[in-house]
Each structure stands twice: as C-alpha cells, then as structure tokens.
C-alpha cells in the first residue's frame, strides 16, 4: 500500500506524513492513511510468503515511503495450540497462544519500536526516546543501539529492577522519573515540544502503533490464512487491542482472509482498569485512575486509545474484564504448567481473563480462540515468589529418599 497522509480519527482532518500525533482542530489521535486500491491480494500474498522471517514481510501494510530495514527484526513468533490449557480450564475449544515474548527484547514492543525507529531514520532523526512502563524501554534502548542512534528512555523510578537492568545494558540514557507512568508520559509530551527527538510513543505514535498490526497478520497467516473466532488481548493504552482489529480488518477488506472481525476480549488488572470500567459503565470516555497493581506493564491510568478499545469490544460482541493480583499470579502459573511458557504479569492478566470467560460460559464449543502473550516472565520474577518450595537435601541417597520416599524406583 502507499501511504497517503496522517488522518484524525475523530474529525478526519489530514496532515503531512511528518512527526506529529494530535489533530490541531480537535486534539484527536492521528492515524496513518493508506491507498490500497492498487494491491492485488494474490500478489501481496506471494510477496509476504517470499519475504523476510519477521515483520518486514508485511511491509505493504507498514507506514514507509521506501522499504524498511532493521538489524534487529522482530516477529514471526510462535503460535501454539494449547490443548492442555483448554483441558485444565475445562473448555471444549481450540485455544492458541501467540507467544510474543519470543522477540529480540522479549515483548511485543519490539514490533512497534522496530517500525518507529525505522521511521525515525526515514524522517532524519538522530535521537529516539520514549515514555515507558518497562518493556518499551528495553526495546527502544536495544533497537537504538542496533541502529546506531542515541536514545533517552524515561520510566517511573520504581520500576521492576529486571526491567531497569535490561534497559541500561544497551547503553541508553536511562531516566527514572519520580512519579507514575502518566506523569512520565506528561513530561515526555512536554519534552517532545522542544527537543529534536523522535519520541516513539509521542510524536511518532501514529507510525509506532502501526507495528502492532503485524500481530494480526501473523495470526491469520499462521492459522493458514484464516481468522480466529475470538481474541483475548491485554489492554494498557488500548493501542495494541485496536490495531489488532485494524490489521484483521485490512486483510478482510483486501480479500486476503474471509469472514468478519473476531470477538474482541480485553484484559486489564483490577488495580488499573479505566477501560474495563468504561466498558462496564457504558461510557465513551475513560475516567483516569491511579494505578495500584503488580501488572506494571499495563499500569496506564489515562489510556490514550481507551475509548476506541471500548467501541471495538462492543461492536464485535466482546467485553473488557479486569482481574485481581491473585488471579494474575494464578494465570502465570496456569500458563507455565500447561504450555511451558513463562509470561510476565501482563500475560497473567490475559490468562486470568481467559479463565473468567470460560467460567461465564462465553466460549462456545469448537471456538478458535487466540490469546496474546505479550511479555516474558523473567522480567517480573517477583510475581512468582513464594508460590512453590525448593526441597533442600544433603548430597546422599538417604537424604533424597527421606524427602521423596513416595517416588517410583527402577530395580
């Protein structure tokens, strides 16, 4: 597709394809508009299949003038059938796990950052920056290092240590802000006005967000060019959730897949659930909250795409649920015990909501459900602490047999 302009999602005003993110007439979010009238689906499919083993195989649907490049290409992460998870939940349905922790910096953020950094280079920026809850910080620091760009990463100062260490190692300028994510975000919005930097999720946000569409394309391609019946996806700002919808919609319109949009189920933590609350209350705006949850990567109290996420859940017959910290811990354990995939707290939120949907009887027999696991368990190790016990023994048989006397013995 060729990119046409930036277009306001609220009022339709159009702008040039430069570094800007909010409409001057109504402050609505800007989105990249494409002209896909010249695309032939059979040709596009051949180009995809002959493409790289990562997100650039979908370059036809990404916001570049030329062909994008990136030395640290993310994407084509595993989509795994999780029958043992379905069995443990007691549901007679196809449950699939899209394990997006299998990216270069172990979260789906590599997709959006790869797109934003490539766009920053296309626009001539020499420094990239971001406001982050942690995963984005890892990705921006790494992709900037790979591309040879300077970077500034702003995070809440009280972030998990694992995420700070996994950011600093790339040689970025790591800035811990005394405040929550929304404070960090406000500061970066102000800094973006005066610094000649590409803030990936502020002034480059329209391009950055496009990277999330690749998760929809991969899902459809990995399912044999078919759509799932339902998706379960975590919501922080609501950008991933809504871009998944846009990705599927683009392929439906082009004729690459048949059918209609899947049912969209969103997942939030009870300690930060502005979008789930707006959904439950029937509001078309999200009332901001002060986050208090172990799911720090989802702790956005003032979600930029919240209103659109609510609309998408409603229009597809889905819902947005919120689960508590114990359900999050249980969700992490359930996924690990049944699939061998260790996810961070955001994944615990998603699995917790999947369990809720099963309990409510919302998942039909034979339904094909894709569950998005967006980050890696090693980044939030604290969430698994004290859930199991290590047996300590002396290095002799007797000591082992005393502790494990019930174990089977061969000969």
């Amino acid at each position, binding site marked *: 597709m060729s990119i046409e302009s930036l277009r306001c999602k609220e009022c339709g005003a159009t702008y040039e394809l430069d570094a800007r993110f*909010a*409409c001057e007439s109504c402050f609505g979010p800007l989105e990249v508009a494409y002209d896909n009238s010249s695309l032939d689906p059979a040709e596009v499919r051949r180009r995809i299949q002959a493409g790289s083993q990562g997100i650039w195989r979908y370059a036809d649907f990404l916001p570049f003038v030329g062909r994008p490049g990136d030395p640290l290409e993310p994407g084509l992460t595993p989509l795994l059938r999780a029958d043992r998870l379905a069995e443990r939940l007691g549901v007679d349905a196809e449950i699939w796990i899209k394990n997006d922790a299998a990216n270069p910096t172990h979260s789906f953020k590599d997709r959006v950052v790869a797109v934003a950094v490539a766009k920053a280079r296309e626009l001539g920026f020499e420094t990239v920056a971001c406001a982050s*809850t942690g995963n*984005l910080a890892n990705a921006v620091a790494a992709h900037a290092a790979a591309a040879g760009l300077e970077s500034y990463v702003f995070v809440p100062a009280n972030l998990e240590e694992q995420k700070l260490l996994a950011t600093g190692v790339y040689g970025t300028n790591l800035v811990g802000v005394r405040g929550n994510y929304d404070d960090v975000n406000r500061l970066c919005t102000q800094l973006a006005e005066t610094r000649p930097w590409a803030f990936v999720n502020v002034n480059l946000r329209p391009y950055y967000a496009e990277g999330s569409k690749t998760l929809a394309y991969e899902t459809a391609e990995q399912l044999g060019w078919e759509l799932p019946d339902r998706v379960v996806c975590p919501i922080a700002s609501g950008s991933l959730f809504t871009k998944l919808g846009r990705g599927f919609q683009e392929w439906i319109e082009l004729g690459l897949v048949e059918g209609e949009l899947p049912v969209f189920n969103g997942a939030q933590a009870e300690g930060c659930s502005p979008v789930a609350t707006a959904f439950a209350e029937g509001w078309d*705006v999200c009332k901001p909250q002060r986050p208090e949850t172990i799911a720090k990567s989802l702790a*956005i109290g003032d*979600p930029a795409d919240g209103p659109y996420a609510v609309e998408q859940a409603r229009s597809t017959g889905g819902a947005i649920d919120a689960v508590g910290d114990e359900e999050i811990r249980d969700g992490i354990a359930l996924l690990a015990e049944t699939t061998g995939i260790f996810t961070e707290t955001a994944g615990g939120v998603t699995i917790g909501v999947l369990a809720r949907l099963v309990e409510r009887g919302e998942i039909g027999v034979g339904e094909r459900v894709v569950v998005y696991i967006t980050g890696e368990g090693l980044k939030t190790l604290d969430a698994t602490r004290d859930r199991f016990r290590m047996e300590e023994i002396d290095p002799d048989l007797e000591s082992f047999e005393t502790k494990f006397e019930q174990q089977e013995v061969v000969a």
Partner: protein
Amino acid sequence: MAVTVKIPTQLRAATGGEAEVEVSGSTVGEVLDAVFEAHGDLRERITQDGDLRRFVNVYVSGEDIRFQDGLETEISEGDEVTILPAVAGGC
C-alpha cells in the same frame, strides 16, 4: 487570580504562535473562558458543548483536573495551567 496557561504546539496557530497566555480566574473553567476571550479559535478546538473534548487533558500545577473537580477545580495564586493532547503514550 493571575495564572499562566501553557499552550501546546498543536494550538499555537490559534494564539498567534504564543506558547503562554497570562489570564486571571478562580477556577479552571474561568481561566479557560478568559483564554477563549483572548483567542476565540481555541474554544472550538478544545471544547464541545461546554465540556472539554475527550482527547484534551488539563493540568493545574502538574495535577490532572479529572483527579480534582474538573472545570470547577480551584486555582491558587501562582498556579500554572497546562493544556496537553491526551493521545500520547502507551502500548
């Protein structure tokens, strides 16, 4: 009460390029009305039917007014009112 209102880049076409506007008022609503008096184009850009548009955030000395009393939030001497687009950030 005299306050400084910070205007984001997206709205400066409506203020003749000015990044700050000095006005007075005792609540956020009064302050914004005073800004609209001076720069009429701004009213339609950030409000709709008397309320702030849904992608407009207003802060009084760094604090989001939705955590306070919205447009009724009281202003103290020396406060700084900041208008920012809400669509930044996130995942």
